[in-house]
């Protein structure tokens, strides 16, 4: 994808999303013997015992606390404590996959009883899942928006879903329809579909990045602006990405958590799509694809993804794409002080005065940045870093500030 600056730069840079190419090779990966799950927490909060046996669909409890909903069968072999993004503690749980497949009693019984909200609540306990929006006050959400737009302009996984997973999508939408008064599905201009579900509204428009961000889509579709820093659920709106609906559809269709997850793998601009059982480690995927030399692995897109430094990291429901690069990407030592060129202010979809804010953030004045420059309005698209002439890692500073502020808030509480 060509994203570099052109000679004439009168218009704002926007990133056109990629399209799924039918000729892309789809590789299915067999369930490996060793699988991994990651959960947020430390060994002290979750004292797992090695040799513990878990079944698919089982709500694993440690010391009376719900730890996670297991998407795999296995025997716990080892536990490792690591630090993840923004220094959050994580536990890596390694399981030897048990051969016998047992029935998913939890899922199938909830499905039979028609307890849809309870099912979603329990699914939110799957490790690494992007939580499903749930009504907080009443039984119904006012509206649910399903976005089929790519979360990152460098992936084309949603296009793939729309071509190959229509049954699952229909199942998922039918399931969600009963939880809301209004359900809208949002398409990009190219891949508009008619699902033939009565009561399902569909909305189609050209959404180039960063205008495909959840808050901006909701503003377009429902005409509602969510106050900055607040979740959708507080205003009784549900927002779901396509992969969440597909996963739901797969679970309902199989009546089991044992599903295959498609992952978009971009190996130095050569694209493959792999379908893997949840919990497969990235190293296994890379061995299967015989990817040899690399020095950078990035999850979930080049613009707002995260780099992975541990190849034991498993593929969990929220991981959509893996980028493997042979050469160093991203920021270099070219960084200078902000020269106030105004490119970040021009591109910012949230209209934040980024040029002023970066001066507060560099000096660790996080509260000033929040109060004077509306830090919390940031929609986390990463475009400010992308266009920065001084090559300042603005997005990094913003995420750090948000994390520090959340720590301060917790301390006060």
């Amino acid at each position, binding site marked *: 994808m060509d994203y570099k600056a052109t000679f004439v730069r009168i218009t704002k840079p926007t990133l056109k999303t990629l399209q799924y190419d039918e000729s892309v090779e789809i590789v299915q990966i067999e369930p490996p013997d060793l699988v991994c799950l990651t959960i947020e927490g430390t060994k002290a909060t979750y004292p797992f015992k090695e040799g513990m046996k878990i079944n698919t669909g089982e709500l694993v409890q440690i010391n009376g606390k719900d730890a996670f909903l297991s998407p795999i069968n296995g025997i716990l072999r080892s536990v490792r404590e690591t630090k993840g993004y923004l220094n959050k503690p994580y536990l890596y749980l390694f399981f030897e996959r048990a051969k016998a497949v047992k029935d998913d009693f939890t899922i199938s019984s909830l499905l039979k009883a028609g307890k849809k909200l309870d099912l979603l609540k329990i699914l939110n306990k799957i490790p690494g899942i992007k939580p499903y929006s749930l009504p907080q006050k009443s039984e119904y959400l006012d509206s649910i928006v399903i976005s089929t737009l790519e979360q990152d302009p460098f992936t084309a996984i949603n296009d793939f879903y729309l071509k190959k997973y229509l049954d699952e999508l229909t199942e998922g939408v039918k399931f969600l329809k009963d939880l809301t008064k209004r359900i809208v599905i949002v398409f990009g201009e190219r891949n508009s579909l008619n699902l033939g579900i009565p009561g399902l509204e569909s909305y189609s428009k050209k959404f180039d990045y960063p205008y495909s961000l959840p808050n901006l889509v909701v503003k377009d579709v429902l005409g509602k602006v969510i106050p900055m820093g607040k979740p959708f659920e507080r205003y009784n709106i549900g927002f779901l990405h396509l992969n969440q609906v597909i996963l739901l559809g797969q679970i309902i269709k199989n009546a089991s958590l044992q599903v295959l997850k498609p992952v978009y793998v971009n190996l130095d601009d050569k694209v493959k799509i792999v379908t893997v059982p949840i919990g497969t480690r990235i190293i296994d995927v890379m061995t299967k694809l015989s990817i040899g030399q690399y020095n950078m692995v*990035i999850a979930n897109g080049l613009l707002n993804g995260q780099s992975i430094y541990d*190849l034991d990291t498993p593929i969990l429901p929220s991981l959509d794409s893996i980028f493997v690069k042979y050469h160093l990407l991203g920021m270099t030592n070219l960084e*200078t*002080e902000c020269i106030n060129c105004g490119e970040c202010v021009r591109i910012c979809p949230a209209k934040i*005065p980024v040029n002023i804010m970066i001066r507060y953030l560099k000096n660790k004045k996080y509260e000033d940045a929040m109060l004077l420059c*509306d830090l919390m309005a940031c929609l986390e698209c990463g475009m400010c870093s992308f266009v920065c002439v001084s090559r300042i890692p603005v997005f990094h500073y913003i995420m750090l500030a948000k994390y520090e502020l959340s720590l301060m808030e917790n301390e006060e509480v």
Partner: protein
Amino acid sequence: MQRSELLLASHAPFIHYGTSVKERYWNIFFACLPAVIYGIVLFGASALGVVCLSTGSAMGWEVLFKKLRRQEPRIYDGSSALLGLLFAMMVPATTPWWLVLVGTFLCVVVGREIYGGLGCNPVNPVLFSFAIVFMSWKNVLDFTGALGNFEVSFFPVEPLNAVKFIGASAESKYEILELLLGKQLGGIGSVFNLGLILGGIYLAIRRFIKWEISLMFLISIFVTALIFHIVNPTKYASPIFHLLTGYTMLAAFFLLPEDTTSPVNFFPKLLYASIAGVMTILIRNIGAYVEGVVFAILLSNVFHPLIDKIRPKSFGKGV
């Protein structure tokens, strides 16, 4: 379970648009060159000397000062070279060597480096140093001084000087086309208006300058000068004359839209440029100085942080 392979990790985004400070300043530098080359052709070898000494010494001062502060010099990004070149464009070809050195010292070190370097200067460094030099050595910075060495085919008085002391009737001694093509006395790089306009358009298309500021500055100069001209046509020169003389074009495209000291939001950009434009004509027409651009821009530079607080409401604020 520990692995020996080490992966590189950094924060998103992992790609960049490709723009850089280096690209930006060298492009502005090259956009200055048509006007500078014309100045060298018009004023002769001494102009070349001033340009080279100014550009070179500006880079030299940066290296020296960065070494003193035990920092890595960044002259490759072209910002110091640009400051030196812009200073040379404003002074006459007869400027003595020591004044060029003092000027670039004031420009690079006092105007910018002591505040923290690139991006930290409170006012435009070039105008800051030019204002000091202009106030301190008024007789040395004499645009007619060069006339002893060569003959010119045009009226040998600096246009703004002529209008200030003779009145608007002096305007008849100049032709608009000749002014546009640089047949006038002035700074080395500020006489060739056509070259400056072409350079400015190039920069605006590639977005190395904030073009709204340039356009609004020219409009506000035109309107203010027109009002003066209508009120008293015998005393005050016509607006077109004001646009094509003095530092107007140089200021519009190279001095006023300087990144660090100009606003970034749309309305503040217009306000900032209007303040500079109106002040320029006020100083030129009723002030003590012949050329008003320098002090007008310094004044609007001081206003810029305040003006830039006028901004659109952030997404999701106060809903």
